[in-house]
Each structure stands twice: as structure tokens, then as C-alpha cells.
């Protein structure tokens, strides 16, 4: 009897080994075939919706048999939806991208992620990937200030955060929300650490228009609804500048928050093979170059070239993100911020 059990166990084990092999790091024809059988892959992302659909279009062109579903929202909203779904036993998401890098610390700790290192990531610098292969920086951007050039001249434009407290900016500012956006949360954490909460309290008395997404505030100053942006995605500013919108980026003299945005595969992804195909695709030099060229993003891929007209990162005073330091404070930051600026 034990022999039967033993051989059953062996069979189960070897089946495991076979699946492990099928889920290897490189995208193999077998993996693509298995992914095509799964039919689709679901990607929750916080990147701007048009950038996300641009990536999706490129993916569909390369893998016409794998349907890619994009669910885009702010990082904190993405986190909230995933938490809510998991709490209710719903398994929908395969691959996740969030600009709140601390999310990945939490997910890894709770053993919710699958370990998978895309071939390109092996060449990434160590600080941009998890040592155990659970996630890696897919894109990076800065949380920049900016202004509308039709409403503000370069001479009068603010040069840093403290300038924004000048009464002349009252009613002219727009800002995104750390309760919604991971970029804004990362930036708010950095600014609160640098300038203290009393700075934010003073800022909240400046009649700041409160938007949600850091993709929204660049669009707001581009339309002329507000003159100066307290925080917003650098990449959306590049997109606006490319589209000839009258906006200009300000790299604050106090420093500009540098926001890394990893992706990861969930351990219980309903489409594990398709998830791996997508994850590998996201990190290829070609996709990364697409993000940089069309999406205005920064890439940590060693082969990617920055367009000449963008200020190189080395010339910008950066406030590096600190996911581990931020993680225990997130709830408190959101609460204090909401009390000052509203929902």
C-alpha cells in the first residue's frame, strides 16, 4: 500500500518539476503555447492609461493569441482593489504594477508573490530588484513641480516647494492625492520628512485644487485650469510637452522625489504562464525603450537610451524613495493628509 502512495507522490512531484520547468525564466515556445491555452492575462497597473494601452498594443502585436486586459487606476486604488478582491477570495489579477514600492514589501512578506526573474532583469543594478526575484523596477519617474507658460513667466515661476507658500500662488495650485496615487504618496513622504508636516499644513491653506492621480495634475495645468502644479508625473509632463502643451517642468531646489515603480506576478495568478510571458515582455529593452520614448518614463534597463532633450537624472537633485521607511507610516500619512486637504 505504501508503495502505491509513494509512487503517487513521485508522480505528483515530477509533475511539479515539469510545471516548474514550464514556468522557467525565459519565454520559451512551450510557455507561449501554455499561455495561449490560458487565453489571457490580467494586468493591474498605475501607469497612465494611454501609456498602458500603448504597451498592451505592442504586446498584442507580438503575442496575438494572448489577450491582455489592462485595469488602470492609481497605485493606492490598485492596492485597495487587490486587497478587497483577495479578502473576498477573488482571483483575477495576474501581474501588478504600482508606484508605491512598499506594496511589494508587504505582498512579499505575506507570500503573495511568485518568484520570477525576467532575463533582462538579471542585468539590472542590484538596488532595482528584489534579491529573491519577486519584483523589479519596471519604470521610474519623478514627482515634479510644473507650471503653465501662458499663465506664469519663467522669472516668476516658483523654484521649490517653499516658494509655493507665497500668497501670490493662492488659488492657483493643483496637487494630486497620496490616498490615490503611489507617486504622490512617495513624494508626500519625502516632502514631509524634508520640510515637516507644518509645511503641508501651510500649503493646505493656499486654496490647492485637490485632484487624485499624478497623471491628472499635468493635464490640469496644460488646460490652464491651474497655473502651478505641486506634484505630478514627470512622464506626463514630457507627454504634454511633446504634444506642444504650454507647460514647463520645475525640478524643485529642495529636491525632486524619485519614484520607482516595480511589477510582480502574484503566486495565485489565474494565468501563470501568460503572466510570465507578459512579465518578460515588460522588461525587454524594446518595451523599456518604448516606455521612455512614447511614455516619457525613466528606465533602469542598462541598454535604454534617454532622448537628448531630457534632463539626465544625474543633473537633478533627487530625493530617493525609501519603501521600507515609508511602509509603517502609510496609514498615518494618508490620514493626516486627508485631514488637511480632504478626500
Amino acid at each position: 500500500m505504501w508503495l502505491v502512495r509513494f509512487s503517487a507522490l513521485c508522480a505528483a512531484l515530477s509533475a511539479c518539476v515539469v510545471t516548474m520547468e514550464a514556468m522557467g525564466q525565459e519565454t520559451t515556445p512551450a510557455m507561449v503555447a501554455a499561455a495561449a491555452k490560458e487565453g489571457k492575462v490580467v494586468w493591474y497597473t498605475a501607469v497612465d492609461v494611454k501609456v498602458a494601452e500603448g504597451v498592451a498594443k505592442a504586446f498584442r502585436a507580438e503575442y496575438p493569441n494572448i489577450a491582455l486586459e489592462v485595469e488602470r487606476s492609481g497605485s493606492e486604488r490598485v492596492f485597495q482593489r487587490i486587497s478587497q478582491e483577495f479578502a473576498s477570495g477573488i482571483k483575477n489579477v495576474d501581474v501588478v504594477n504600482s508606484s508605491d514600492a512598499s506594496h511589494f514589501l508587504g505582498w512579499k512578506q505575506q507570500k503573495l508573490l511568485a518568484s520570477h526573474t525576467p532575463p533582462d532583469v538579471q542585468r539590472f543594478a542590484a538596488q532595482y530588484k528584489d534579491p529573491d526575484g519577486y519584483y523589479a523596477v519596471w519604470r521610474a519617474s519623478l514627482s515634479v513641480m510644473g507650471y503653465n507658460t501662458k499663465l506664469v513667466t519663467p522669472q516668476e515661476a516658483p523654484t521649490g516647494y517653499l516658494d509655493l507658500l507665497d500668497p501670490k500662488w493662492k488659488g492657483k495650485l493643483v496637487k494630486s492625492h497620496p490616498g490615490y496615487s503611489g507617486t504622490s504618496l512617495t513624494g508626500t513622504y519625502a516632502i514631509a520628512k524634508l520640510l515637516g508636516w507644518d509645511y503641508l499644513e501651510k500649503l493646505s491653506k493656499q486654496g490647492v485644487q485637490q485632484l487624485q492621480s499624478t497623471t491628472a495634475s499635468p493635464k490640469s495645468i496644460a488646460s490652464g485650469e491651474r497655473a502651478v502644479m505641486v506634484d505630478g508625473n514627470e512622464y506626463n509632463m514630457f507627454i504634454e510637452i511633446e504634444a506642444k502643451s504650454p507647460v514647463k517642468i520645475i525640478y524643485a531646489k529642495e529636491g525632486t522625489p524619485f519614484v520607482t515603480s516595480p511589477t510582480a506576478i502574484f503566486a495565485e495568478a489565474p494565468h501563470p504562464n501568460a503572466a510570465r510571458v507578459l512579465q518578460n515582455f515588460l522588461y525587454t529593452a524594446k518595451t523599456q525603450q518604448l516606455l521612455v520614448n512614447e511614455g516619457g518614463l525613466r528606465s533602469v534597463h542598462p541598454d535604454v537610451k534617454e532622448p537628448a532633450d531630457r534632463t539626465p537624472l544625474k543633473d537633478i537633485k533627487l530625493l530617493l524613495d525609501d519603501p521600507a521607511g515609508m511602509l509603517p507610516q502609510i496609514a498615518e500619512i494618508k490620514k493626516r493628509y486627508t485631514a488637511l486637504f480632504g478626500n
Partner: protein
Amino acid sequence: MEASLRKPDAGWRSFDWTAPFSAAMVLLLAVLVLLPLFWLALTSVQDDAKIFTLAHYRQLFVDPAFVRPLWTTLWTSAAVGLGCIIAAAPMAWLVSRTDLPGKRWWRILILASFVTPPFIGAFAWVLLGGPNAGLVNQAYYALFGLKPFESASLINVFSAWGMVFVMALYTFPYVFTFAANALDAIPSDLEEASAILGAPAWRTALHVTLPLALPALLGGFIVAFLQSMTLFGTPAILALPAGVDTMTTKIWGLFQFPPQLGLAAAASLPLLVITVALLRAQAAIMGRRGYSVIGGKSGSAGKPIRLGGWKVPAVALFVVVLGCSIALPYGVLMRTAFVRNWSAPLEGNLSLEHWRFVFFEFSQTQLALKNTFVLGVTAATAGTILVTLIGYLSLRKLVWGHRYLAFLATAPVAIPGIVLAVGLFLAYTHPPLVLYGTLSIIFLAYVTKELPVGYQQIASSLRAVHPELEDASRILGGTRLRALLDITTPLIRNGVIATWIFIFIGSIRELSATILLFTARTKTISVTMFDLRESNDWGPIAVLSITMLAITFVMIAIIHRFTDARLK
């Protein structure tokens, strides 16, 4: 009597299933309506460890983070109600009593503002009334040689008052309808008497007509108040950017991770209590002073008052109100859908980019359209069947329980959408029935929410069919079911179709309950638009708004055909 007419040997075929069926319906409705409320009440008095506590309520009435939104909700809703009366009462009087030109068209446009989803109106008004880039303000600055930021804007929709203005634009049709119906029903004898005695028209209107129409106006005020109080989209779009919370946005905020369900449940209860209280007040006001008994002559029989030179300001009132609620918003949505940059001049700006994006690139569109249609069709079908059966059982007073049926079918009118959603979320996120994450939970929300409207609609059709016709069929040996299928159903066919379309339209535009119940797989068009709002993607929002409005108006055209057919 009936029993003796039955053939004794017909067996189960002739068994009258009405009574057990009716009991089953009462049970079904009770579960549908009462279960969410039960969970709401229970959760509001439990802490995280499920131990009894009143802490949530204490926080609700002490913490300024809740007291302020509650106060904002109350005063803005009252302001909307008053604004609606100030605009709609004269409009109703003009349409009902005077020789105002173009009455038919004004009525059609008022119907159009009635069916415009309020959140679409709010989207449009962001583009019109944003203080600096809004097109109305841009025109104002250009006209007077002013500059944005330097001078005050003509209108600022990102404020509590801006929200009141936009809410009123899509709520006034309720007050108009109440007032116009009341005026049509009030005989004009008294007004004529006043005119004969030499009072000028304005005096008659103020001292005779107004007091007579007052209960209807109060009723309209209450409906407008309740509408505004329970809206989620408009405050989220217009007030949140100004840092102003209402109760609905606050409840939504409590659902952000980690959800504070006990507080959310407690915060829902004031809305529920206010709604029930005001609806009772309304019933009392409108019930006590019914005018159908005053005289046999109806208002329309009287001679219309000649406006003369007053025609100009009268028409101007309609132009301004309907311009703000229909012409400008629809215009700006069309413009935004076809230009690259919504705030820039048209020249060199035209583009089909947003249409291409929405229908060929945006991977949410297909899913959201499909979900919206599936929900609309299933909710309308199930809802129509349900209200038809309930209407039949309760109006024919056939069996025990008919009172409860009518009560339960109309009770959801007192449950604001977002409150219903909190209740449904609490009721169906744990065993035995885990529905969260499926379309079923949203389906339940839609059916429950639309029950009262459907019931009213079908009841008016059923009342027109005299029971004698069914009795004839029963006497000839048919069962209750036969009579229903062969006699009543064909007679109320048009009413049933109208009910179906009403529920369908109500469902495809639903936002305030869906916003708490959807997941990535179960998104609808309305929540997709709300997601796009958070990243200021106005072009795609305009395209989806136009699509939704087009579907709505096609459906209304269909209703119109069927109701016209009935009249012929």
C-alpha cells in the same frame, strides 16, 4: 363561490397557486430589501471583534470629519431644493397657465435634462465652469477683456455652491413635473374669479395659484432635497477637488483600504433616516390637501393668460435654465470628444483620437459595455417580471400579504443608492451567499433600486384593466395563470415594455451603488468614466458620455413609439 365552479376532477392543474406563490414573493422581496438593511444596522453597532458598541455613532456626531460633511450635505441639498423651486415653479406656471410659445419643445427639453445622468452633467460642467480654463469662463474673460486668476471667474464649479448649481440643473425637472401636474389638476375657477374681480395676473398667480400649488412645491422640494442628498457622482467630481466632502463621498472614502465598514454603516444610517422621515412628511403634505375634490373643471380648460411683453423674460428663463442643463453641456461634450485639447481653440485642434482610443485601444471599453448591457437587460427583465407579478397580486388584492408586497416593492425608494450598496456589500461578502466580485451583487442592487419606479409604472397600467375581464376567463374554467397570460398580459403589454425600458435606463446610468460594488471584472461604463475622471482624461469621458446619452435617447424614442401606439 369560485371553488364551486372548478371541475372537481381537474387535479393539480386547476390548483390555485396564487396563495403559495404570493407568500414566496413576500419572502423573496423581504430578503431582497430587508437583508441588506439588517446587515447595515448590525454592522453599525459592532466593532471589529463583532462586540456591541456605539462608538461609530459617537464618532459620527462628534468627530468634525463627519459632522462637517453631514452639515454640508444638509445645507447644499436644501439649497438645491430652493433653487429648483425658484426656477421650476415659474416655469411650471408659464407652461400650464400662459400662452408661452414653444411649450411642447420646452417640455421635451425638460425631459431631456431629467434623463441626463447627473454625473455626465457634472463632467460637462467641469469643462464649462472650471474657474480658469472652463469654456464659459474663458468666454467671459474674453468678452470683458479680463484675465483668468486676476479677476474672479463668472462661475466656479469646484466649490460647494458650484455643486449646488450643477445639481439643481438636473434636479429641477422633478419639481417642475410636480408643480406642472398639480397646476394641471387644479381647476382654474378660483384664478378666473380673481381675474374677474380685477386682480392683475401676477397678483392672482402669487395669491391664488401659489398657495394652491404649495403642497406640490413642498413635495417637489423634498424630492429635490433627497435626490441631491444621495448623489455621489456630482459631489465627487465637483466638491472633492475643493476639499469639500458630503456624506456620500465620505462613505465612499470609508470604503478605501482598509475599509472601515462599521463607520460606513453608521454613516449610512442618517441618510436612511432622513429619507424615510422626509418621504413621510411628503406623503402627509400632499395627502392632506388633495385638490381633485375642489371642482370638476381641470386647469387646462381655462383660458391661457396672455403674457404680452412678458414673453421675452419668460422665454429667457427657459433659455437660460435649459441652456445650462442641456445646450451648453451637450455642446461641450461634443466639442471635447472631437478635439485633442479640450480647453484650446478649435482651429487645428480637431481629431478623432479619443474615439479611436475608446473603441479600438482602451481595453476597458468592451468589458464595460458588455457588463453594462448584461446588467441592464437582466435587471430590466427580472425587475419587470417581478413588479408585474407583484403589481398583479397586490392590486387585485387576491391573497394574504398583498399589502406587504406593495409596501416592500415601494420601500427601496427610501434607500439611497450608496446606502443600499453598503448593505449589499455587508450582506453578500460572506457565506452563505458570497456575491461580491460577481455581476449578481450589482444586479441585486439595480433590481432593488428600480423596484419602486417599476412598480408605479406597472401599477398604473394594471389599474386600467378591469378585473371583470379576468373573472370572465375564470368563470369559463381558466386558471388564474391562464387568465393572466391570455387576458391581462396582452392588455398591459405596452406598460410592461415601458417598465422594462425605464429599469434599463435607470440601470445603465447607475453610479452611486455600483461605485462600492464593482471589481475589475465587473466594471460598468459609469465607473469606467469615474476612473477616467481621476486621471483627467476628459476626451475619452466625453466619448463615453455621448455613447451613453445616445443609448438612453434611442430607448426613450422606443418608449415613445409604444406609448403612442397605445393612444391610437
